């Protein structure tokens, strides 16, 4: 596959996506992670600590035409002061070969616990986000992304 330059056209992007989809079909049954793998990762980090819903705004597209580049924006509601801030945010994709996507470390200097990036998704799946506050409290959020393979707009 050609390296993706900055002048990546829509056509090459789609072609790359289609090729990747085809490759994954040809590779047969690849081992995919599932919700259990995400739970195992979280257990390693935080043990059995309870997690509350809320505080997190997880912004992902409902339908991603190209699983190679899926924008993800996460924002955690916090004053971001020395005494009360978001320490870290972990993002997992439950249906990828490996569950980890990204782990962010925030400081009060950020002023706002928000970050955006782009990720790869192998198939339609849940995105799981966990935020750790400076007082040790954990919050979680979940969103589903439908990945259309072949770009037929399923």
């Amino acid at each position, binding site marked *: 596959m050609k*390296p*993706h*330059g*900055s002048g*990546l056209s829509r056509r090459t992007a789609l072609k790359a996506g289609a090729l*990747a989809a085809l*490759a994954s079909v040809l*590779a047969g049954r*690849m081992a995919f992670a599932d919700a259990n793998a995400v739970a195992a990762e979280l257990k390693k980090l935080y043990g059995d600590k309870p997690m509350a819903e809320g505080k997190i705004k997880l912004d992902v597209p409902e339908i991603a035409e190209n699983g*190679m*580049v*899926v924008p993800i924006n996460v924002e955690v509601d916090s004053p*971001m002061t020395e005494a009360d801030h978001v320490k870290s945010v972990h993002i997992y*994709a439950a249906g*990828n*070969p*490996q569950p*980890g*996507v*990204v*782990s*962010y*470390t*925030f*400081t009060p*200097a*950020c*002023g*706002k616990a*928000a*970050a*955006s*990036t*782009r*990720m*790869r*998704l192998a198939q339609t799946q849940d995105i799981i986000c966990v935020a750790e506050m400076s007082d040790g409290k954990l919050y979680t959020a979940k969103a589903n992304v439908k990945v259309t393979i072949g770009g037929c707009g399923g």
Partner: protein
Amino acid sequence: MANKPTPRVRVPAKAAAGEMIEIKTLISHEMESGQRKDSKGEVIPRKILNKFTASFNGKPVFAADWHPAISANPYQAFFFKATESGEFTFTWKDDDGSEYVAKNKLTVG
């Protein structure tokens, strides 16, 4: 990739004290996931940028640990609360041990 990864960073040159600014970064890198196979059916070894860090006047501001699920030519945006003038240092760490660095100045006032 034959080309050396080139970072591109967008930081406003000036900000008012207390203003929240958004920093956008992009670096050219294939982010080989270690999942793909070449034409001979052999796995292409993983080679990704695994860590991005941002610091201001030497103090850490933001960090991201990237996994293979991050897209090629990784983009990362985050926020910073401007309080004083200074310089940002952005660092990307590669699986092969190399480091790519970009620096940007910010004037507050």
